[in-house]
């Protein structure tokens, strides 16, 4: 096809063009480079890059990730070493080298806060992955198959929905307490209780996508059931699941802190923000800082993930654009 606008029919090979066909062959439109990203994800990324809320949450999350993988970059003190705690200096205020002061055991609050990020992030991320994969796959299956499969799985999720979450988590962690699972007990408890939410969202999104013409067209052109499920339904139903997963991640981190605070989550000597808050609460009026710092870090982390989830939701919903 030539680049110049065609006024006269241009004979191509042996094919001669009739008058009608010339109308059907407008000159190639030169599209500006800016208009390039045009898929749902491309548009969303284009949109996200210009959202301050997304940038701020991205930076915060990046810092938190670095902090949880390489805490020694931020703190020269190893809080797991007994030598760094001096009982004599317990509840001492901020001093050079100990910016956030010391806690009830005379340990450095700053170092513990930094090292506490890892458990929060690990628990938040793994729980999110497990719930997204389990809930997502089951939701995809239930939504695609419908019928008995859908009815049975939906009723099962309703049983889980009926369990009050903190009570359920207390029960699960208390039951498996003797198994010595470390922080994974928290992941297990939260995953068991949270997957139904992802399930529901995925199922609803799949059911919406399922009745759309392109799924019927794919069937009419010979796509198999599994191909329709993973190539046509999944990509079109993924957006809401990603959004809820991001928002949930913040929720899981908060839930971990709550469980640790209640004494059934992360156990000493492991470090967790929830645990630090629990330890510091008895002497809060005397020494507020050992409670304030982990609490602030916890709030900022939860906020960052929820902000990110909000931004992603707005970007993936074309109607809000």
């Amino acid at each position: 096809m030539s680049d110049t606008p065609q006024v006269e029919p241009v004979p191509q090979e042996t094919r001669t063009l009739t008058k009608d066909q010339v109308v059907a062959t407008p000159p190639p439109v030169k599209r500006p480079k800016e208009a390039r990203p045009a898929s749902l994800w491309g548009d969303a990324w284009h949109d996200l890059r210009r959202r301050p809320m997304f940038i701020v949450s991205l930076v915060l999350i990046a810092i938190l990730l670095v902090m949880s993988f390489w805490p020694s970059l931020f703190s020269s003190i190893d809080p797991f070493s007994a030598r760094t705690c001096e009982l004599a200096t317990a509840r001492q205020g901020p001093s050079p080298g100990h910016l956030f002061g010391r806690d009830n055991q005379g340990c450095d609050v700053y170092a513990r806060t930094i090292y506490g990020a890892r458990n929060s992030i690990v628990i938040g991320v793994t729980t999110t992955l497990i719930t997204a994969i389990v809930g997502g796959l089951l939701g995809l299956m239930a939504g695609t198959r419908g019928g008995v499969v859908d009815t049975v799985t939906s009723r099962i999720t309703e049983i889980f929905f009926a369990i009050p979450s903190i009570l359920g988590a207390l029960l699960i962690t208390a039951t498996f307490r003797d198994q010595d699972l470390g922080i994974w007990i928290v992941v297990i408890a939260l995953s068991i209780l949270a997957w139904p939410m992802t399930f529901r969202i995925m199922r609803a999104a799949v059911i919406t996508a399922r009745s759309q013409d392109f799924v019927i067209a794919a069937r009419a052109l010979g796509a198999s059931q599994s191909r329709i499920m993973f190539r046509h339904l999944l990509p079109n139903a993924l957006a809401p699941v990603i959004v809820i997963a991001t928002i949930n991640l913040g929720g899981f981190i908060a839930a971990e802190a709550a469980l640790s605070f209640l004494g059934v989550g992360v156990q000493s000597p492991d470090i967790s923000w929830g645990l630090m808050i629990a330890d510091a609460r008895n002497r809060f009026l005397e020494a507020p800082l050992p409670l304030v710092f982990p609490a602030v870090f916890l709030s900022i982390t939860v906020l960052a993930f929820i902000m990110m989830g909000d931004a992603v939701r707005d970007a993936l919903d074309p109607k809000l654009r």
Partner: protein
Amino acid sequence: MRKTSPDVLPAEGGLGNEPLLALEDLHVEFGTRAGIVRAVNGVSYTLDSGETLAVLGESGSGKSVTAQAIMGILDMPPARIPKGEIRFRGTDLLKLSEEARTQVRGQRIAMIFQDALSALNPVFTVGWQISEMFRVHRGMSKRDGMAKAVELMDKVRIPAARQRLNDYPHQFSGGMRQRIMIAMAIALDPEVLIADEPTTALDVTVQAQIMELLAELQRESNMGMILITHDLGVVADVADKIAVMYGGRIVENALVHDIYKAPAHPYTKGLLESIPRVDLKGQELYAIKGLPPNLLDMPPGCAFHPRCPYRQDNCVTDVPPLYEISGTRNSACHYWREVLDGDNR
């Protein structure tokens, strides 16, 4: 639903003088909360290679449901096929297993939809979607598939096909999108192409181009085509024969020129008279009085009798059989002779 008969795929060349596709007394019904909707009530027609059958009818006449039954893309339940046969080269498709039907879909019988924008997956590029046909069914590599996709896009006359390979469906105009849908449908050289209102969503000039393209592709490959439409104007140039549907039944079967010369069913006559014509400019446009029948509560006797100007007493009580007028023509009207004679009412 599991079918028990052996999975014999229809032979490539066909058996003896079996037609390419034959529908025999097909019934389709839907179980709804309000009762059973009988969408298709005993439809029979045949299609040969290189032939175009236009299935004409208004919304709810069962024309699309018939096509979906042929493709096997009805959701069952709520849909049921209590009776009938769909023979493709002599093999009843309804008796095949789901796996065998998946083999037929797309490769042997393909379908084009009305609204190409919603019939194309919005999250994949058109090149990806066309080449998918080759990757899934022909085991081609991604690169070969893409090369074939360009070939096909050229074939359906999409300008600058290579550059537009990585565009998404919504970046194309309506006519171009329908061309992409057509490219996907003809990708594997099907023997039957079902086009369900392929031009309804397009404007008139583009309609003509798409019909022209379909007719040309059909001539090249000698496939049989079923063109479902409610637009008599679209049919005239392209179709060889016409089946007019009303209330889930075929009310008239005829070669295309016969029907335009003189319709043999009052409904067909009404349809023809309601086409706007230049020579009747200024006059009121004819419309068939009344509404299409409620499929939940079909009128007794002839389904068309409440709207029929030729109605006699027995139309209310007796369901008209499909009277044979000639070898190629049927009409389901007790008074087809009067209608055919042009007895104006």
